[in-house]
């Protein structure tokens, strides 16, 4: 009986090329018509140390990286020991029989030894062990070899014919070795169904970069930091040909400083960083808030505090994003839950920054920026960026009191409109002022914009039962896992639902209150990838109800199974 989807994990020390192999497999699967979803984790070291690439593929839609793998490919004994106990019962281990010997396996475990090294040596390219494994993998669950070859050719096209040829040959040897064994295919995945047009295969960081491009971003400054650097790399490819500037600065303070300067001078500006860099940016976020400068900041969260675990995911910067820095500096905080969100929320961030003249923070994380999946092609007609309200001769002062809190903004070079943007408290003309009434009025003006912005924000999305007994409120990258966890609970017979929040500050308190006060609701769970339950506390501070915290702080995302198990546990506890 064909399975709806399959989870494959490639595990090796870094430098073995499992990422490349996994991505070629992903492209081949998409070419066949399946949906895919990737997750990878690796140590901070460039070479050596355990790393794995997980790919889930099957019928559209695939919303998470899934749970325990059906197939694990291991390149060495360390990887076998680290991953084999994660294998789904009845699953398949494909291993390099040249470097691993004497595996007994466990009951129900299928073992398939393939001589990765000697087959790679046979084509005179010892580094092609990953391609041998890829060929073996394709044979194991029925990906046609020609589809795979196309993927390999595309991937190595710029390395010349020799490299392409050797990689293709290595994958063929792996493929035939498994086919000749007579047992393959070990799995059959449901046919993909009718072809869905207009889907693209894209990662989170690419979607963020493309969103910035679509929003008219023409200035980007950053400092390299894992896992945000690929955003800079992608933008340095796409912005300059259209006239945009991409600048690598000397630290995160200067990166955000340059972005603030560019925006003040009229550019649509963005910076991107992760934990430690985000901490360094706090003073400048306050400046942008105080001087009312439009700015988009991406924080690809990673495990903290301090250097933490640079290559592992976490959702622990929520408090910092909303409250970080001294004084009270209003800023908008958004969080993408899907790869489509990565695009549309970035577009939205620019629209909000320009309209409300304040910093807008996009709280992504390691898991979502590195995730690759298929999404419907992004639609141009959904993109609208309001021009910032510009001052004209005769306009009131730069920081004029208005009902909305938004004041007309001159841009340097505008004749006769000069002003001083300033981090000092100031009056309507921008002149420094320590007048008690001015500070109160100006603080209120700046927060008024935040209140106004709520109407423009993306409301929470809801999944599952309409009369839920168990409610789940989540935020950010966990959306797919929660949605699938809710599905599992529904199939089990638990009336579960979820509300996924995309705009964290300001937050849709009214909608949250309405969700919490559904008469059917018996328990409210907030799953988060942090230790203290930051969203749960934030909700409690706003609505006075303490949700059940379900936290995980292991550097790894939730699996749907974990969400389901917790839902089931709470449900059964309630019935006792």
């Amino acid at each position: 009986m064909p399975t709806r989807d399959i989870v494959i994990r490639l595990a090796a020390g870094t430098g073995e090329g499992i990422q490349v192999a996994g991505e070629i497999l992903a492209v081949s699967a998409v070419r066949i018509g399946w949906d895919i979803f990737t997750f990878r984790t690796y140590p901070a070291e460039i070479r050596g140390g355990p790393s794995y690439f997980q790919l889930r593929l099957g019928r559209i839609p695939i919303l998470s990286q899934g749970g325990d793998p059906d197939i694990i490919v291991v390149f060495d004994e360390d990887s076998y020991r680290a991953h084999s106990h994660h294998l789904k019962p009845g699953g398949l281990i494909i291993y390099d029989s040249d470097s691993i010997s004497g595996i007994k396996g466990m009951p129900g475990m299928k073992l398939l030894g393939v001589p990765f090294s000697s087959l790679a040596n046979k084509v005179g390219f010892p580094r092609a062990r990953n391609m041998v494994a890829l060929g073996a993998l394709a044979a194991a669950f029925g990906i046609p070899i020609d589809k795979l070859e196309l993927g390999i050719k595309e991937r190595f096209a710029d390395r010349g014919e020799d490299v392409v040829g050797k990689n293709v040959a290595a994958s063929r040897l792996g493929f035939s070795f498994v086919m000749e064994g007579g047992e393959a295919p070990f799995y059959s995945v449901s046919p993909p169904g009718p072809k869905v047009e207009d889907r693209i295969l894209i990662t989170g960081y690419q979607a963020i970069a493309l969103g910035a491009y679509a929003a008219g971003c023409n200035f980007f400054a950053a400092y390299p930091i894992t896992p945000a650097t690929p955003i800079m790399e992608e933008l340095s490819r796409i912005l300059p040909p259209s006239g945009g500037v991409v600048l690598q600065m000397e630290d995160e303070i200067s990166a955000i400083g340059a972005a603030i300067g560019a925006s003040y001078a009229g550019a649509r500006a963005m910076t991107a960083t992760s934990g430690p860099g985000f901490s360094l940016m706090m003073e400048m976020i306050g400046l942008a808030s105080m001087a009312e400068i439009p700015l988009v900041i991406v924080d690809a969260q990673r495990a903290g505090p301090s250097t933490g675990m640079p290559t592992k995911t976490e959702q622990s910067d929520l408090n910092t994003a909303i409250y970080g820095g001294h004084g009270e500096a209003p800023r908008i905080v958004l969080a993408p839950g899907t790869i489509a969100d990565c695009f549309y929320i970035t577009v939205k961030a620019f629209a909000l920054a320009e309209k409300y003249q304040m910093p807008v923070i996009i709280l992504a994380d390691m898991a979502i920026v590195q995730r690759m999946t298929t999404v419907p092609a992004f639609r141009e007609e959904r993109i609208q960026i309001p021009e910032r309200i510009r001052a004209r001769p005769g306009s009131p002062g730069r920081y004029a009191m208005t009902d909305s809190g938004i004041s007309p903004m001159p841009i340097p070079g505008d004749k006769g409109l000069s002003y001083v943007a300033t981090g000092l408290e100031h009056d309507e003309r921008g002149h420094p002022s320590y007048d008690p009434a001015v500070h109160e009025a100006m603080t209120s003006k700046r927060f008024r914009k935040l209140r106004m912005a709520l109407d423009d924000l993306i409301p929470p999305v809801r999944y599952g039962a309409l009369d839920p007994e168990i409610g789940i409120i989540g935020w950010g990258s966990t959306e797919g896992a929660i949605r699938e966890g809710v599905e599992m609970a529904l199939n089990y017979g638990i009336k579960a639902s979820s509300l996924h929040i995309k705009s964290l500050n300001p937050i849709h308190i009214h909608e949250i209150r309405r969700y919490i006060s559904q008469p059917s609701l018996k328990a409210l769970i907030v799953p988060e990838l942090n230790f203290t339950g930051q969203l749960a506390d934030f909700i409690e501070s706003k609505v006075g109800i303490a949700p059940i915290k379900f936290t995980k702080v292991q550097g790894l995302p939730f699996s749907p199974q974990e969400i389901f198990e917790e839902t089931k546990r709470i449900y059964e506890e309630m019935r006792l």
Partner: protein
Amino acid sequence: MKGPERMRSDLEPIWCHGCGNYGILRAFCKALDSLGLDPYEVVVVSGIGCSGRFPGFLKTYGFHVVHGRVLPVATGIKLANPSLTVVGVSGDGDAFAIGGNHIIHAARRNVDITYLVFDNSTYAQTRGQASPTSDEERFPRHALPYGLIEMPFNPIAVAIAYDVSFVARGFSGDPEFLSDLIAEAIKHKGFSLIDIISPCITFNNTWDMVRRRAERIGPEYDPTDRVKAFEFATARTDKIYMGIFYVNERPTLEKKLKMAVRRMEPPPSLKEMMKGFEVS
């Protein structure tokens, strides 16, 4: 309004009577005027300290940023709109202590920014602590209890070592000469730094000492030789030399950016950009 006065706003400076910064303000307005600039074409970015208020006294555009971050913000402004004249203004603490790292990278980039350091060798706004350029002779009143035990920083020598493409020293007590230096620095295409000795009348009154020792660099001096410039900047002397120490004409970052990238006209649509992500 005609003349340098057209650069001044109607705000009266908040500096102490006798502060060196008045001379800088006068010299700066005169320099802008002599270059035929209009106030709206100029942006002055300032940091924290007594110099931070400088843009408020001008009719130009201004941005009073946080402590030490004048150069990153100025870099963003200039790259976003290269037609603007961008001037940075810092004190010696803002420029050489908290913001010191940014000078290295402004020098590497060579963005066309003029950086004026109002150097009074003390933290005047916090009431007279020792600053990076405090030395035994220019010693703040409210120094540390055990005196000054750190070596002073030599901004000119360090700027030459960083290969800042225009390095000069001015004195607020000689605003005519300073005005010419500022005009030269603005005309220079690239990152220029002028360390302006600007005595603090309240916490570190060095007026008499600087007046006694100040001397203009003679016309025979060649500022294009980096090694000689470094020797000159580090030579033991009783004089405080004013003038251009070092000039290295080289392409600006904005020019290099323009040359490095072939612009696509019109820029590709989102639809075209997405082609790279299709799997056919």
